[in-house]
């Protein structure tokens, strides 16, 4: 009974998450350029996608920024969450204030103020400024997520380890990290997602030589977003899905 309820709820939510995606994939094969009415099956958008070097370049740039910034934010944020959960230090409340303020500050304010900072510091906007901004807006999500997982842990485990002479470095990597791993993974996933889709902040902090995909897509509104983007999203989605599934079944085999 309960198991049945669980499976149906999970399936329903997955249907909600994947329904629009299915639509997107189907419409990447639609011949029409502007309408969202079905006008016949076609591979047009896939062939023109592979000729659209600008779009592909921007996509690769986006992936690179998302990977690097999400890894950096996850590493830093995990340390940060550990620090605020286990240590007492001056400015802890201020630190949380800053964490929350990043999460809620309107993108436009963050984008403009960061650009002002870079201009004042004489840094030319480009890849590094973009990376810095992405790490900054991903960090709070990692911190809040990992902090939620750490809080409620029995501190006596750590005390015991310390009493036995464990170094702080070992406490973190051998005791804490394995316990919070699911939260770290979740934090990384959210960071990667946020970074891959950010438009407004990126617009202000990136330079002329470094274009990323969301910027390109949002700037298409003047003429209407080309279905090439649907094709690109479909390919990306199918590739990640295939990779995740393969990894899953490999792990499963290994366990057997």
């Amino acid at each position, binding site marked *: 009974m309960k198991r049945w309820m669980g499976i149906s709820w999970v399936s329903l939510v997955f249907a909600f998450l994947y329904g629009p995606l299915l639509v997107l994939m189907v419409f990447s094969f639609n011949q029409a350029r502007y309408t969202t009415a079905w006008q016949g099956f076609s591979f047009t958008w896939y062939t023109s996608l592979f000729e659209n070097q600008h779009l592909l370049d921007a996509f690769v740039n986006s992936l690179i920024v998302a990977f690097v910034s999400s890894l950096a934010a996850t590493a830093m944020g995990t340390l940060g969450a550990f620090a605020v959960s286990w240590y007492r230090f001056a400015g802890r409340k201020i630190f949380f204030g800053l964490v929350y303020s990043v999460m809620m500050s309107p993108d436009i304010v963050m984008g403009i103020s960061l650009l002002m900072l870079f201009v004042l510091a004489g840094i030319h906007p480009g890849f590094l400024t973009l990376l810095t901004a992405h790490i900054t807006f991903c960090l709070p999500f990692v911190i809040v997520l990992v902090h939620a997982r750490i809080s409620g842990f029995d501190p006596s485990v750590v005390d015991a380890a310390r009493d036995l002479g464990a170094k702080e470095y070992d406490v973190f990597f051998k005791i804490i990290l394995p316990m919070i791993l699911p939260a770290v993974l979740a934090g990384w996933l959210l960071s990667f997602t946020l970074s891959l889709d950010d438009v407004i902040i990126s617009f202000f902090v990136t330079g*002329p030589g470094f274009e990323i995909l969301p*910027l390109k897509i949002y700037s298409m509104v003047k003429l209407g977003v080309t279905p090439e983007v649907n094709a690109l999203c479909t390919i990306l989605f199918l590739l990640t899905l295939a990779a995740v599934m393969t990894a899953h079944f490999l792990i499963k085999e290994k366990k057997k």
Partner: protein
Amino acid sequence: MKKWTIILCLLLAPALVCAGDKTLFVYNWTEYMPDEVLTAFQEKTGIKVIYSTYDSNESMYAKVKLTRGKGYDVVFPSTYFVHKMRKEGLLSPIDHAGLSNFRHLDPILLDKPYDPKNTYSIPYVWGSTALAYNSDQVDPKNMTSWKDLWRPEFKNRLVMNDDVREVLGIGLIINGFSVNDTDPDHIRMAYESIQALMPNIRVFSGDSPKQPLLNLEAWAGMVWNGEAYMAAREFDAIKYVYPEEGAIFWVDSMVIPKGAENKKEALAFIDFILEPENALLVCEYIGYAPANRTAIEMMPEELKNNPTIFPDPTDVTKGEFQTDVGEAILVYERYWERLKTGL
């Protein structure tokens, strides 16, 4: 190891780009210029074009102003942003003597109030904001004037551009004022008219006003001509009319920011775009009218005679081009906020 190689490449990439002797940084909407024109320019002159994009005039303006135009050599602002940027000293004058193709430009678009004598801007493409409707639902006789939008049968059936100047602009037009009016009383009257229109408005479209028409969510509304043209190509019930009071016209121009580092290359690029063959390619690709008389003459009859893209000269003289309203934009915005909060 591999990761570090990638990172290293990334850090070096901008340096490598700059290492080439001649580059030109173009700042424009995504795909607002066909790739083949860019490659042709590269082949002809040996200047490497780096194309980056923005999604609205407003954000482009903020960014160019904050970075003092450094890093961008040719930008494509619309009508009143040319005016604004010119007034604020963000643009550098364009040497017409260096433009061998200036003579191809359509005189109807030159020497407009937003940039007298075109000292700072060269028209690229132009278009209008007027009425569009779905002829399956709307009788053409009922769609000839801006005032028709107020008809009770359009309750909850209109699409409008999500643009404060254009929406209040219609309010100004039907009260007999200019779309560039700065008198607070006139703007208040425009606001009151639009307030009465609110029950008819189903959607303010910030991305693509043709979509609500194509989706049958809206029956009529205010649409850019290029949008109406694209929509009609795939759904022929969509019609476009120039209202009798006159439409709002806009021009996307090419300008060189004051801080541009490659001004000579920028000038060469503008001149290249003015070549009729290239202007023609642009028009075919993006569906808006080129500001180029010679190019229009080279077009197939059927396209040349399409009134959606190429309005009758009398329609153009009846209409207005937007200019910057200066401080009055604060008044516009206040009424806009009240419209959208229902206060």
